[in-house]
């Protein structure tokens, strides 16, 4: 293995919030499929929640590339990602089953490139949470009442500092502390700075070859 990659430990994320409400927000909503026609993830941030953020962007606009798409989008909605008060928010606060559907890593990539560093929600779809972990974005869960209270608070006080403590499994804001949960493997990977697993998985090629050779179908 060459070129070691810098993988920082992520024990906590601090910043302000952006509430995106609703259960079952799927990855097609987070980033529509027409924006997946790219060879790198660069520049995907501006397409996060695109069809929720703009009206009148039909398929006709999609055929001429992303630039045309961007120009064709004229009518911003009241989506929180269009709200200046939340523009610097780096802690996304969501409800249940966030990120369901397609495995497209473009979804967390778009959120990360928009500026999201951590997501707090009631629950997450598995592949989405795994993709977030691979980017070093914690997906932290808490009870629905706590989530809604946090969303309400951020809505009313956008400048509130939120501290997502991955190691301690808590979320602190406005003098309050919420009990949160972080999947144990996710917590250990983030806190140990081992969330980019390529080097870890590449460290034992002999053992991998041995396992491969033990399987009847590799003969």
């Amino acid at each position, binding site marked *: *293995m*060459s*070129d070691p990659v810098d993988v920082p430990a992520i024990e906590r994320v601090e910043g302000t919030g952006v509430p995106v409400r*609703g*259960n*079952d927000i*799927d990855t*097609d*909503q987070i980033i*529509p*499929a*027409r924006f*997946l*026609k*790219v*060879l*790198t993830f660069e520049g995907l941030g501006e397409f996060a929640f695109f*069809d929720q953020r703009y*009206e009148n*962007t*039909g*398929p006709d606009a*999609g*055929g001429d*590339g992303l630039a045309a798409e961007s120009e064709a989008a004229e009518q911003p909605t009241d989506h929180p990602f269009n709200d200046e008060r939340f523009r610097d928010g780096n802690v996304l606060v969501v409800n*249940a*089953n966030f990120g*369901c*559907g*397609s*495995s*497209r*890593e473009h979804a*967390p990539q778009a959120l990360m490139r928009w500026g999201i560093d951590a997501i707090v929600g009631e*629950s997450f*779809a*598995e*592949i989405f949470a795994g*993709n977030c972990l*691979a980017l070093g974005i914690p997906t932290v869960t808490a009870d*629905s009442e706590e989530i809604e209270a946090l969303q309400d608070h951020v809505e009313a006080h956008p400048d509130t500092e939120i501290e997502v403590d991955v190691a301690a499994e808590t979320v602190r804001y406005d003098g309050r502390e919420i009990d949160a949960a972080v*999947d*144990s*493997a996710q917590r*250990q990977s983030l806190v*140990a700075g081992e969330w*980019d*697993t*390529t080097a*870890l*998985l*590449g460290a*034992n090629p002999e*053992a*991998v070859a041995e396992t*491969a050779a*033990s*399987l*009847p*179908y590799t003969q």
Partner: protein
Amino acid sequence: MSEGTLYDAVWDRHRVRRLPSGQDQLFVGLHLIHEVTSPQAFGMLEERGLEVAYPERTHATADHIVPTDDRERPYDDEAAESMMSELEANVADAGLSFDHPDTGRQGIVHVVGPEQGLTQPGMTVVCGDSHTATHGAVGALAFGIGTSQIRDVLATGTVAMEKQAVRRIEVTGELGDGVTAKDLILTIIGELGTDGGVGYVYEYGGPAVESLSMPGRMTVCNMSIEGGARAGYVNPDETTYEWMAETDAFEGEPEKFAERKQYWESIRSGEDATYDDVVTIDASEIEPTVTWGTTPGQTVGISEPVPDPADLPPEDRAVAERAQEHMGVTPGEPMAGFPVDVAFLGSCTNARLPDLRAAADVVEGRTLADGVRGLVVPGSQRVKAAAEAEGLDATFREAGFEWRGAGCSMCLGMNDDQLVDDEVCASSSNRNFVGRQGSADGRTILMSPEMVAAAAVMGEVTDVRELDAAPEVAR
């Protein structure tokens, strides 16, 4: 935790080591790649100076962006052309096998894998696509991964995974006439919820599952992720072995087949296996099932009324209200009779030969209803060729359908096959999310291929079982 299941057996056979995080490092028996989620991974590999560790266990196809009408290169869509070219270059550099459209084997990744016998019982299969669970139909442990994980698998031949719980979904009784594997899985998702399977792998079993053909089992396993389960599988049995024997991997190789079959038999869930959860579903109570909303869990039997959000559990109400507003459906009324503009027969869920045969049976002697656009997109070039050999293409064409080349097409609208404005699509695909089929206002109703065919010829959602009695369309 589960014990003695196929999941446990396959996991153990592929486990290389326990990682510090508590995850396991699993060897990947088959890594399937396609043009949309792999180029970024190859880019990362290059940045890090890494190479593909197990090229012989990596197989490529092109499906998501491939045009289904004019397939002449270069493609009209520049972005699609660049993705295809990138895949060609990556595949050539790494020396990977590739179902290029010129080979006659190209198709949707979850159709070509089982079709060619690349996917085998007792194998670990990963792909940068959430519908990878499809391959569980042959008794493989198959799951979707993201692009960073594709990078991991390319670079190391392994993936970091947490072992999950196993839920046995025991389907008793038998499916009635006109009721299919699609209706079964839509019912399962409707009952257990779109996040009911989070943390679980689904083992589908019981008489109604065992009596399904391999393509039927693929339909069921395919939509596991729609129920929140990252993987789903069916234990291999005689139906599986017959399927495998006819694939490229084993055709004319009885000795290899006999030897491999011993392994396949050895990984089946034991009679005394322990499951973390067991759910029983009675197949005989299922009727043709369709979605009324914008998640695959918002389903209803064709004779039942669309639910009133007020009657749903509190946490489901807001989603249901938004969904009904988007769809324009009315609580209390059945979906039967809801007008459709487009009929889409295709996708990794339902575009295999038996799916097309069943739809053609319904279409035979009938024509598309006025104003309905019909699209048939076979799952692979081989499915297409086999269907043409039986004359299915003629049946569809005579009815007014377009007969297209293989690809993902209107399931997710990444090529030109898209809904326009607020068109309603009767679709044999797997997701009815808002915007899924290419138009932000588009409306998708999921159903079986037979039901899509019925909706296409009637111009509205129709119980396929009642179609024969409709005098105005009978020949």
